[in-house]
């Protein structure tokens, strides 16, 4: 399945996918509507190719990171694990993390940094002793898009006595953390590939900049760290160390994307260069399920 999805992302679609949720700022180009269309098309493609089945989800997550996919798929996989009996069909679901009050089958909560809130069919409100599935679009729900470094589709969502359609127990984060770690490994590898390509072609002082050992050794070192992180996320015992693995993948993603920026020089800062895109996406994705220090606290 992952191979088929990899083929789906190749070719002309790749550059559109990398910016599928990157809001332009003053620079023109594709509009929000264009990007929303891309996201809808990608969702349809992924669902059609079996991405919601939950099989080989770690490899799928790594692939999604490598193409810089942005959408509700990883959240949806977690929600499907959490609410196995809910009739979700192929509907996209967003995780909304926060504490909430519940009474009479409704919930009230304020949740920040909820992904793709404007285009999912359900929210899975998690973080408490119980988890609640609610229908998106209910008049008791209000959303506001965050203005943030990633320029992505992150929202504040307020639930005010919103009816709950399905209850479940607390979310078990292990699966989500391993998938997020795998996503970051894919993203990090893609950023590193971008840096290596540039180091081979960019010439200064009469030779390719990658001919300098100070730079080539740094790239080699990063590639070895990525190699190691990849083994951690695909290890059969990964879920037993999920939080620590995610923290390590998050640290590595920030380090590699920051160095990718340095290698690219000012050219990497340009909006039309992918280096700055990896840098900003790594910032957002690396703390999406908690900061590394939170993740490294003894887990309950």
């Amino acid at each position, binding site marked *: 399945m992952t191979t088929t999805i990899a083929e789906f992302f190749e070719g002309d679609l790749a550059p559109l996918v990398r910016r599928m949720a990157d809001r332009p700022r003053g620079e023109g180009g594709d509009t929000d509507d264009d990007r929303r269309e891309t996201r809808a098309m990608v969702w349809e493609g992924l669902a059609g190719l079996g991405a919601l089945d939950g099989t080989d989800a770690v490899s799928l997550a790594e692939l999604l990171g490598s193409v810089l996919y942005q959408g509700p798929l990883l959240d949806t996989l977690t929600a499907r694990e959490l609410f196995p009996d809910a009739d979700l069909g192929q509907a996209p679901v967003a995780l909304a993390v926060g504490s909430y009050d519940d009474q009479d089958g409704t919930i009230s909560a304020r949740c*920040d*940094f909820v992904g793709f809130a404007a285009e999912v069919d359900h929210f899975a409100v998690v973080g408490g002793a119980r988890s609640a599935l609610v229908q998106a679009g209910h008049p008791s729900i209000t959303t506001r898009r965050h203005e*943030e470094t990633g320029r992505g589709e992150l929202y504040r969502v307020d639930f005010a006595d919103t009816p709950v359609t399905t209850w479940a127990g607390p979310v078990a984060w292990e699966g989500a953390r391993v998938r997020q770690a795998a996503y970051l490994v894919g993203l990090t590898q893609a950023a590193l590939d971008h840096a290596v390509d540039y180091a081979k072609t960019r010439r200064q002082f009469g030779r390719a900049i990658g001919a300098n050992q100070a*730079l080539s050794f740094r790239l080699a070192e990063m590639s070895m760290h990525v190699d190691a992180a990849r083994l951690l996320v695909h290890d059969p015992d990964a879920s037993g160390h999920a939080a620590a693995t995610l923290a390590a993948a998050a640290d590595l993603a920030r380090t590699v994307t920051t160095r990718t920026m340095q290698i690219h020089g000012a050219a990497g800062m340009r*909006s039309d260069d992918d280096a700055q895109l990896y840098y900003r996406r790594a910032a957002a994705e690396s703390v999406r399920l908690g*900061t*590394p*220090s939170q993740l490294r606290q003894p887990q309950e």
Partner: protein
Amino acid sequence: MTPVFTPEQEGFRQEVCALLCEDAVRAEIAQSRRMPYGQESGLLDVHRRLGKLGWLAINWPERYGGSGATIVEKAIVTEEMIRHGVPENVHSLGVDIVGNAINLMGTDEQKDRYLPGLARGETTANVLFSEPDVGSDLGSLATRAEPDGDGYRLTGRKIYNMKAQHSDFALCAARTSTGPVNYAGITLFLVPLGSMGTVVEPVWNLSEERFDLITLDGIRIGREDVLGEVDDGWQVLNRVLPFERTGLDHSAKAERTLAALREHAPPGCEERLARLETRVRAARLLAWRCIANLHEGKPDEIHSATAKWYTSETAKEVSVAAVELLGSRALLDARDPDAIADGVFDAAFREAPGLTLAQGSSEIMLYFVATSKLGLPS
């Protein structure tokens, strides 16, 4: 060495702080950081206020709009402006780099013409060095200045400069002759912007301030617009670089971000904050060592390279650490109503990559220290 300030200098710092803490100034600074996407501020009222007091270029002679003070007072102004969040690129480009170069190396006519406007905060300037294929290796620049009567015609493309849309003129490096040593034959020109023969196009990037691609299409420049000697631009740059590479701007930025981080960091971050705090203190000391060198008329290239590398890498580390320690909250930008610390973390994170590239990349500083300080083979 801990910078030791005279009571007068300490008093002056308090005066600068008092001005920068005025409600109207704070409101203007906050507003300038919340402009609609694609727009950015140029010179602000606060620049003109400082200019009117003779503080903006305080170390320049009074006849050029300064107060005849020393580089120490100038550094105090710069440090406090950055600590208080005044957008500094428009000031550092105009006064600290271009204006300073004119003050050091310009003719009396050039000083009369350009310095008073810069010192008053009424005009500004930018720097045209980098080209699409020329970054750190300035010796290989391709922009040409061809003799034309008693002047020159400039042809080429300059990129990754900032504030061209607000600038009245620019300091431009162009090749006037070729020879076996590629650093020779470069001349610096003072080029009017917004005139026939220059085309400015925005190049959007991840920071708050756009880059520009400037095409010089045969613009005519007079002989009187050469800064320093023809073919001798490299010497001018070497004279000016120690002023540009004190690291003071970066250490002040690191201080500002760290102060906000300390305020907002959750429990459990104390050890990391303590490490960062020590680095930032060391960064400031390295920067002030360079200021002291300049004050004594003894610029030290190794001290400059050390300060530039250490301070910019420190500022970057603090910015990235803020995201790591604060998580998603650090990513909210100043335009989000729930942004913490006026969005300083997002702005610092997006600015960070440029700090270790501009004014000489970290790699150039490392190479210089490896070869010139440690004596390693080049």
